C-alpha cells in the first residue's frame, strides 16, 4: 500500500508528509514547533479553541488555527518564526490567556513542566496591560479526593471535558455556563468518580487540575523519572514513576500506542502510596510461643530452610499472578529442583492457544465487530480495554456483549455456551464474525480455560488466516501466564499430586488473599507466606517473609496480549528483595539461582523466549508474532447452561449471587485513603423485574440471605442487568452462598 505524499513548506523548509497529515505534525516533521494548548489528537477531532497555534497560510488573508488544518499539496505555512503576523497572533493569544491566569507559578505544582509557562517564555508578552481585577474563584476545590481544581488557573482548553465526554465517555466532567463565566464542573460538585479520572491531570496544560497525592511533593528538577510497566492488572500499561528522595511521588502514563495510548486507570495511577502503608512488613516474622514475632533474616532463612527440608517434596507452592516471571522461575528452581516439590497452585488457568489469534490491543479500535463474552464488565478486569472498545464503537464498530449486563443478556456462567452457539454455522452473529475482516473476540470473566474456549471459537470462525481478526482473554491477574510458564520451565518433571501437604509455600498477596489457598493452609502442617502486609497472613502463617511491590522490582511480566514487558525498579524496597533470599536459600539446597533479575531473565529467555534480550524488550515492548493454532485441551467440565431466564415465576424464588471483583479493590487499593471513594458502594444490583417483584426500588435497604448468613445492602435497580441474579462486589458479598434470598430490610 503506497501512501500519497504531499509537499509543504513551513518557514521556508520543505517537507514531504503523507496526505491528510495535520499541520502541527507536518511542521514537527520539518523540525518546527507550532505551539498548542487545546490540540490533542487522542481526544478526537481538533476543536480550535485556544488559538495558540495561529499560523499564516499563503493565500489566506486571516491567520489560521494550524491544529484544525490538514496539509494540502504546495501549502506554504509561516509560523511565528518567520511571520510577524503569526507572532503577533500568538502573542495576542497568550496575552488573552494571561488576562485571567494567576501568576502563582511559585506555588503551582505545574511549575517547571507547564506548557503555559514555556510558551509564554517563548512567545508571550513580557508585561501585562491588564489593569482590572482578574476573575477569582474559590481555590483549590476538590474535584474528587484525588484531583484538585483551580478554576483561576484554568484556561478553558476543554481537554479534560473532552476526555470525559469523548474518550472515557463517563459524562461526569463538563463545562457549565457560557462565555466569560464558563467553568469546569461536575454535577452538584459531586466527586469525579469514574475509572479513568486521573488522565485529566496529565491532559491539563496548566496547573488547574492537579493530583492531591502529588500536591507540593516535588518539582521536575528535583525528581527522577523511571520508565516501568504497571502491574496492577493484566493490561500492563506503560508508565513512568516520578521519584524524589527514594520515594514514588506519582505515576504518569507513558504512551505505548499499541497498549494504552497514554491513558492510565486510577488504580494504576493512584495506588502507589500503598508501598508506604502503615502495616507494611519490612522484617521477617516467625511464629513462636507468643505468636508472630519479628526475627532476623539470618534466623528467618534458617527457619525457612528447616521447614523446607522437613517437608521436601511434600511442599505445595501457591503462586500469585502478580509475581514477576523471574520470581516464579527462581521459586521453581528452589522448590522444584532443590526439593523436588513440583506441586503448585497456579494463579489461574492459562492457555497458549490464543497465540494463534494474537493482536495488539489497539486493533480493537480498528475492528468492525467485537464480541465480548463473560460475567464481568471489561472495565473491572482490564480497564484500558474498555477505552479501546469505546473507541471502536465511536468509529462505528458493533459491540456485542454476552453477559449479565450485556447487550445480549446472559445469566452468569453462560459464556462458554455463548461461544459454542457463536461457533454454530447457523448463528447470525457468528456468520457475520466469519465474514468480517476485522473482528475481535474478548472473554471477560472467570472460567474459559484461560482463553482456551475463546481460542476454540476463534478457530471455528476461521480467524487464523485473517490478520485483522483476533481474540483476547482477560485474566484476573497481571502475569498469570508468565508465572505459569516460568514455573513450568524451571524443571522438567511433571506436576505431582501431594496427598499430605507438609508445607504450603505462599508467594505473594494475591495467593495469600485467595480463599482456596487459605483453605489449603488449614490442611498443611506448616505455612510460609511471602506478603507485604500484616493483615493478610498474620493469623495463619508460621513464617512470614516480607514481599516487595511492583514498583520495587526488576523483572518481566507478560500481559494479556502475550507481550513480555520489562519492569524497572523505581525505588528500593524497605527489605531485601525476593530474588536475593531465594538465591541464598536455593544455594543451601545446591541450586544456583542468580539474585539479579537480568541474569534470571537470561535463563528464562533461553528456555521460553528464544533468547529475546531485555534490550529487545526496550522501553516499548514489541508484540510477538502469531503462532500456529494448537487445539487446547477440551473443557474438563461441560459448558454450564446459563441460568434459565425467569419464566413466569409465580412466587419469589432465590436469585443467583453474581460476585465480581471490582477494579478498585484489593490490598493495595485498600491502603490508599484517597482512593476509597472509588470503591464500590455497599449495594446489590437487581434487574428491574426482580426488583419490582419484591417491591424494591433503588435506594431501599435489602437483606441478602443464604443458609443462615445474611448481609444488608442498598438496592440499585440496574436496567441492563439480566433477570435472576443479584450482583454484588466480592468485598460486600462476604460468606453468602451461590443462591440468595433478597428481601426488603
Amino acid at each position, binding site marked *: 500500500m503506497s501512501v500519497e505524499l504531499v509537499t509543504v513548506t513551513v518557514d521556508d523548509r520543505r517537507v514531504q508528509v503523507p496526505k491528510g497529515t495535520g499541520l502541527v505534525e507536518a511542521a514537527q516533521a520539518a523540525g518546527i514547533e507550532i505551539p498548542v494548548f487545546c490540540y490533542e489528537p487522542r481526544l478526537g477531532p481538533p476543536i480550535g479553541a*485556544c488559538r495558540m497555534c495561529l499560523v499564516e497560510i499563503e493565500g489566506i488573508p486571516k491567520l489560521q488555527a494550524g491544529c484544525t488544518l490538514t496539509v494540502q499539496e504546495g501549502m506554504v505555512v509561516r509560523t511565528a518564526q518567520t511571520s510577524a503576523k503569526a507572532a503577533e*497572533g500568538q502573542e495576542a493569544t497568550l496575552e*488573552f490567556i494571561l*488576562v485571567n491566569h494567576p501568576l502563582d507559578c511559585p506555588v503551582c505544582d505545574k511549575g517547571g513542566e507547564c506548557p503555559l509557562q514555556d510558551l509564554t517564555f517563548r512567545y508571550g508578552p513580557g508585561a501585562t496591560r491588564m489593569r482590572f481585577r482578574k476573575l477569582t474563584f474559590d481555590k483549590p476545590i476538590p474535584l474528587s479526593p484525588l484531583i484538585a481544581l483551580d478554576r483561576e488557573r484554568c484556561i478553558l482548553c476543554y481537554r479534560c471535558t473532552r476526555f470525559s465526554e469523548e474518550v472515557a465517555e463517563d459524562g461526569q466532567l463538563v463545562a457549565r*455556563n457560557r*462565555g*466569560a463565566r464558563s467553568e469546569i464542573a461536575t454535577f452538584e460538585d459531586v466527586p469525579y468518580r469514574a475509572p479513568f479520572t486521573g488522565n485529566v491531570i496529565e491532559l491539563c496544560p496548566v496547573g488547574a487540575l492537579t493530583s492531591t497525592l502529588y500536591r507540593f511533593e516535588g518539582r521536575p528538577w528535583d525528581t527522577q523519572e523511571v520508565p516501568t510497566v504497571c502491574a496492577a492488572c493484566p493490561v500492563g500499561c506503560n508508565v513512568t514513576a516520578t521519584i524524589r528522595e527514594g520515594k514514588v511521588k506519582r505515576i504518569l502514563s507513558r504512551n505505548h500506542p499499541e497498549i494504552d495510548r497514554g491513558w492510565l486507570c486510577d488504580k494504576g495511577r493512584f495506588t502507589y502510596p500503598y508501598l508506604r502503608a502503615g502495616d507494611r512488613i519490612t522484617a521477617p516474622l516467625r511464629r513462636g510461643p507468643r505468636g508472630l514475632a519479628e526475627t532476623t533474616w539470618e534466623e528467618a532463612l534458617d527457619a525457612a530452610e528447616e521447614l523446607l527440608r522437613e517437608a521436601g517434596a511434600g511442599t505445595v507452592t501457591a503462586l500469585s499472578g502478580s509475581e514477576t516471571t523471574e520470581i516464579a522461575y527462581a521459586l521453581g528452581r528452589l522448590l522444584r529442583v532443590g526439593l523436588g516439590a513440583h506441586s503448585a497452585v497456579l494463579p489461574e488457568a492459562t492457555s497458549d492457544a490464543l497465540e494463534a489469534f494474537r493482536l495488539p490491543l489497539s486493533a480493537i479500535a480498528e475492528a468492525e465487530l467485537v464480541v465480548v463474552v463473560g460475567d464481568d464488565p471489561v472495565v473491572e478486569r482490564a480497564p484500558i480495554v474498555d477505552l479501546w472498545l469505546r473507541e471502536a464503537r465511536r468509529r462505528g464498530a458493533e459491540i456485542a456483549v454476552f453477559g449479565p449486563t450485556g447487550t445480549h443478556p446472559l445469566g452468569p456462567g453462560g459464556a462458554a455456551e455463548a461461544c459454542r452457539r457463536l461457533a454454530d454455522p447457523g448463528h447470525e452473529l457468528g456468520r457475520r464474525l466469519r465474514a468480517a475482516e476485522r473482528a475481535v473476540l474478548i472473554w471477560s470473566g472467570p472460567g474459559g480455560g484461560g482463553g482456551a474456549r475463546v481460542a476454540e471459537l476463534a478457530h471455528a470462525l476461521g480467524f487464523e488466516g485473517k490478520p485483522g481478526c483476533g481474540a483476547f482473554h482477560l485474566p484476573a491477574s497481571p502475569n498469570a501466564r508468565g508465572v505459569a510458564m516460568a514455573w513450568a520451565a524451571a524443571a522438567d518433571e511433571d506436576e505431582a499430586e501431594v496427598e499430605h501437604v507438609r508445607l504450603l509455600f505462599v508467594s505473594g498477596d494475591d495467593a495469600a488473599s485467595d480463599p482456596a489457598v487459605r483453605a489449603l493452609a488449614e490442611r498443611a502442617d506448616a505455612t510460609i507466606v511471602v506478603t507485604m502486609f500484616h493483615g493478610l497472613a498474620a493469623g495463619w502463617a508460621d513464617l512470614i517473609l516480607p514481599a516487595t511491590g511492583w514498583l520495587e522490582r526488576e523483572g518481566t511480566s507478560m500481559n494479556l496480549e502475550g507481550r513480555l514487558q520489562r519492569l524497572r525498579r523505581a525505588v528500593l524496597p524497605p527489605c531485601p528483595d525476593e530474588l536475593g533470599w531465594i538465591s541464598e536459600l536455593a544455594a543451601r539446597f545446591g541450586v544456583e539461582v542468580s539474585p539479579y533479575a537480568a541474569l534470571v531473565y537470561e535463563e528464562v529467555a533461553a528456555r521460553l523466549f528464544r533468547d529475546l534480550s531485555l534490550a529487545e524488550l526496550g522501553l516499548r515492548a514489541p508484540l510477538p508474532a502469531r503462532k500456529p493454532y494448537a487445539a487446547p485441551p477440551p473443557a474438563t467440565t461441560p459448558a454450564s447452561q446459563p441460568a434459565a431466564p425467569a419464566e413466569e415465576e409465580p412466587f419469589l424464588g432465590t436469585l443467583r449471587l453474581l460476585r465480581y471483583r471490582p477494579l478498585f479493590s484489593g490490598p493495595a487499593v485498600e491502603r490508599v485513603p484517597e482512593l476509597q471513594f472509588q470503591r464500590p458502594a455497599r449495594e446489590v444490583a437487581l434487574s428491574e423485574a426482580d426488583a419490582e417483584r419484591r417491591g424494591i426500588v433503588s435506594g431501599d435497604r435489602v437483606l441478602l440471605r443464604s443458609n443462615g448468613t445474611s448481609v444488608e445492602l442498598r438496592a440499585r435497580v440496574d436496567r441492563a442487568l439480566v433477570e435472576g441474579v443479584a450482583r454484588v462486589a466480592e468485598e460486600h458479598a462476604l460468606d453468602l452462598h451461590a443462591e440468595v434470598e433478597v428481601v426488603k430490610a
Partner: protein
Amino acid sequence: MPAEPLELLMAGTAEHDLTTLEGYRAVGGYAALAKARAMEPQAVIDEITAATIRGRGGAGFPMGRKASLLAKDRGPVYLVVNADESEPGAFKDRDVMRFTPHRLIEGCLITAHGIESRSVFVYIRGEYLHEFEVLRRALAEAREAGLLGDVTIVLHRGAGAYICGEETALLESLEGRRGQPRPRPPFPPVVGLYGRPTQINNVSTIALVPKVIELGAEEFAKIGVPSAPGTAVFSISGNVARPGNYERPLGIPLRELVYDVAGGIAGGRRLKAVIPGGSSVPVLTPEELDTPMDYDSIQAAGSFFGSAAIIVVDDRCCMVQLALRAAQFYMHESCGKCTPCRVGTRWLVQLLTKIEEGRGAPADLDLLDDVCERMLGKSLCALGDFAVYPVSSYLRKYRDEFEAHVELGRCPFGGESSLEGIVAPVEQHVHALPADAGVPEAAPL
C-alpha cells in the same frame, strides 16, 4: 425616485391572511412546489444558482453555490433552516414566519427536492414562541394536505443563545450539545449535521426560493442589483419616525431607506450614526448615507450588509454608551469556547465601562483600540469580530466623544444620553451557576 415596494417574501401579507393553507393557496401558494417537483433536482439547483440568491442571514454566500458543494454519497443529506434570528436590530425572519409560514415551508420542500434531502430541520430561536406556533400549525396543515411527500420537517426550538445563529454552533446545538462553533473546514456541505452533508440557509433565503421558481431565475435576476438580485426585508429600527420591516430591492440607497421609507429621524433630531447590518457591523456616519444597500456596495463603504438590519442613532446618544452596550451583548453571548472572544469581550466591557465612567486615561483609548486589533480575525467564529466592529468603528469615527470622556473625567452627556443607565443582562445574576464570575470588575488593582 423612491423604489416601489416590490414584495417577494412578504407578497400578499398586507392583503391576505397567509398563515392558513387556504389563504396561501389563494395567492398561488405551493404552485412553485408542484413546478419544482416536475423538474429534475439538479434543474432546481441550477435555477437557484442562476438566480444568485445570496444568503440573507448575513454572510451573503450564494445559495446555489452552497448546494453545489454538498458531498454526494449514498447517505442522507440534511436541509437545515436557520431561524435563530438573534442579531440585534434584525426581525425580518420573524415576520416571514408569522405572516407567511407556508412560503417558508414551500421553500423548504423545493430546496429539499433540489438537494435530494428528505429531512429538514428548522432551528427556531426559543423566544419566538408565537412564530413557532404559527409555523407548527402551518406545517400540520401542509402535512395533512399531503404536501410534504416523503419529506419530514422538524421544528427544533432553541433556548436563548445568539451564537446558535452561527451555522456550526447551530448544528452542535441541534445535535444536543452546547452551541459552540466547530472549526471549518470541514464545512457543513461536507460534514454537517450528524456528520452528514448539510445545506444550511436562513429563513429569508429559503422563503425566496418559491418566488425564484415561480418567476424563473431570469426574471428574478432583474430585481435588485446584478451582484445581488432580488429583494430583502430591511428591518429599520432606532430613532426613526416609522420603524419596521420594509421589503425593497437590493441596492436601494441607505438614505432612501432611512428618510423616505422609515420617515426620517424621529422628533426632528439630528442623525448621528447608522448601523447598516445589525449591531455586529461597523457603523456608518451621516456622510456615508448614500451607500446602496447591497452586499458589495456596503462592503466597499467599510461595513457589511449583514442581516439588513438598520439601526438609526440620533444625536442624543452617547457613542461610548452605545459601544459599551454592544460590547456587553457580545460578552453575554460569547460561547466561551475560544480564548480571544471569551476573554476579549470581557476586557472590552471593562475598558469601556472605565471610559464611560470617566476614569479612563488617554492610554486606555489606545489599549481599547489594540485589544480590538488583537481580537480581530483571531477567533474561531465570526462572533469575536462582531464584538470588535462596533467598538473599533465607533472609536474610529467618534473618537472625539471617547476623548471627551477622558478629558472631562465624566460622560459629556451628563446623564442626558438616550442610553443613560441602561441595564444589560450580563450585569444580572440570574442565569449563571452558582456564584458566578460577577459583573465585570472595573476597579483598578
